């Protein structure tokens, strides 16, 4: 008797359920795969590539250094005017973001940095982010100059970079490395010094607004007292009627 195998390839309900379950599992796995960036640790574009920045385009090394440090200096000075209280607060605003001004220069530079939120999202809270991004942009620009001698020598106005001596190349690398290191140290120290002031800035603003509010109340009461002096004496008596 020949052996025959019973072919039961026709799909049963069980087959359909198994296929459906497998399909759902595959879809679920793939959904997790697609959204893993958000599920695990934020967007995947947190690793960014370094490149030259339009903020420092075509500047020679010396001018580049001057522009960066001068801008940092002015940013810090603008912020210190806020700490010291000479910058006017918008105490009647509803949120602290509106009470504390962002700073004109800070807002202007934030517009040139893609990773810093632009107005109207940009607020006083983004100052440290702004400093960080500005430093990072500078560091990336320097790194690009280090990696590509062509950009460096072009910015210096020396188009014949092919004929540079080895010692010039060593000097170039040393200058850039040194400046990167110094800018990093200055930035770290700046942040460690400003951290406390930044953290307590809302409290500082609240106190100043409270003080101004107290002065307003005092002035209002003073005006009330002055006007009360001018009112006829009888007007203050309960039996006095305006009809009399």
């Amino acid at each position, binding site marked *: 008797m020949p052996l025959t195998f019973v072919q039961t390839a026709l*799909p049963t309900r069980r087959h359909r359920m198994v296929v459906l379950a497998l399909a759902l599992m*595959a879809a679920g796995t793939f959904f997790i*795969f697609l959204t893993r960036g958000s599920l695990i640790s934020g967007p995947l574009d947190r690793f960014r590539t370094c490149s030259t920045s*339009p903020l420092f385009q075509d500047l020679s090394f010396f*001018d580049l250094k*001057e522009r960066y440090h001068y801008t940092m200096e002015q940013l810090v000075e603008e912020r210190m005017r806020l700490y010291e209280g000479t910058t006017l607060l918008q105490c009647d605003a509803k949120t602290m973001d509106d009470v504390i001004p962002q700073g004109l220069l800070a807002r202007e530079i934030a517009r040139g940095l893609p990773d810093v939120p*632009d107005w109207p999202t940009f607020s006083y809270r983004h100052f440290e982010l702004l400093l960080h991004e500005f430093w990072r942009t500078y560091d990336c620009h320097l790194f690009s100059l280090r990696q590509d001698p062509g950009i460096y020598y072009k910015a210096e106005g020396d188009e014949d970079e092919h004929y540079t001596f080895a010692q010039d190349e060593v000097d170039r690398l040393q200058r850039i490395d040194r400046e990167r290191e110094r800018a990093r140290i*200055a930035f770290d120290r700046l942040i460690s*010094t400003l951290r406390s002031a930044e953290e307590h800035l809302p409290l500082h603003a609240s106190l100043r607004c409270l003080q101004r509010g107290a002065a307003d109340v005092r002035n209002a009461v003073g005006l009330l007292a002055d006007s009360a002096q001018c009112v006829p004496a009888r007007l203050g008596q309960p039996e006095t009627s305006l009809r009399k």
Partner: protein
Amino acid sequence: MMHVTRSPSGRYYTIQLNSIVRASIRAAVSPRVAPSKSEGRIEGRAALLSMTRIILTLGAVLLFVGCEGEAPPQAGTPSSSVSIAPAAPAPIPAAFGTVPPAWTLTGSHSFYMRLYDSSLSSLNSSQLLEGDIPESFAADTDGDGEISPSEEAWTHAIPDRIITAVAADLVAQYYYRGTKPLEERGNDLVVWRTNDMAPIPTEEFVLENTAGETFDLNEVKIFVREALFNPNMGQTCERFRPWWNDPHEPTNVPDSDTYIITPFQCMQFIDEVRTAVDRERSLHALRQDLSLIAYGEEFLWDGQLQISPTELRSYDLLADIAGVGNILGSAPFAALFESGNQGEQCDGPTCACVYSQTATCLPARQVVRPVPACIARLRPAATA
């Protein structure tokens, strides 16, 4: 089987399927009339196969869509035509970054620029350039009685206090006068520098051996500088005999020809000196960092406790700037630092208003907080 194209805007994909796939989909989704039992089994199997094929196809499409754009960018390769270019940043206004002609990197004494100046002290010594840190004097390193340009540059490269500290460490075991080198008290080891804990002035720092022969600390300092900046190490040991290198006591050898040191010993010794300088510089940088953090807190509370807007940048800020100047030991405050006033505010003989550019030093905006002793010191500087 199929062809995937992306729309010009990049927002959606168009999938073109061939006739086989279209038929499969049609078979899977089209309503069926009641088939016979055998027909139903065959159609059911075909539909199941079609569904499986569709699922696999869609899975492949999704995989393609999901993975597209996640490959790491390769350097020097232009982006593909389907990738979405990031939004270009807004154009920078022409006024941004205009540096005033009078402003220079070394001429500004703002808070930030002081931090930048101080970064030199944290640099590795191999990254230092000649003439980095200005000093008040230059050392005659070769002892010919004249200050050559190279000697001037070497003197300026590293602060004198670092050199002095390293030199003092090298000869500390020979300094007996007024010093108890080490004393064990309970579980503590106490190092006494002098009986009254006062700093020892360099000019009174007399070194002598048991035979009464005296030695000059400046020779040790010169050696330390030379070891750092002279690329010819052998020459350093020939010209400056490390007489302090004796384990027992300094040996006074009048004639340099009779002094014997092998090149290996010399290189080893110079390496030790360089390591010591780097250690001293690291310690100094750490001290600066800690002081700056403390300064940040103090600056904050100076501002918080006195809410009046005019106060923070008047006397308080002036004193704070003097404090930072002392901490960083830079520019006009080097003198204060040398006097040992670092960390103190306005209780030394030469306090405040060294920072002459500050508008607070002008009579019209003078001291707000009443600190009589300081006011007296501020006024002469302001009028000057």
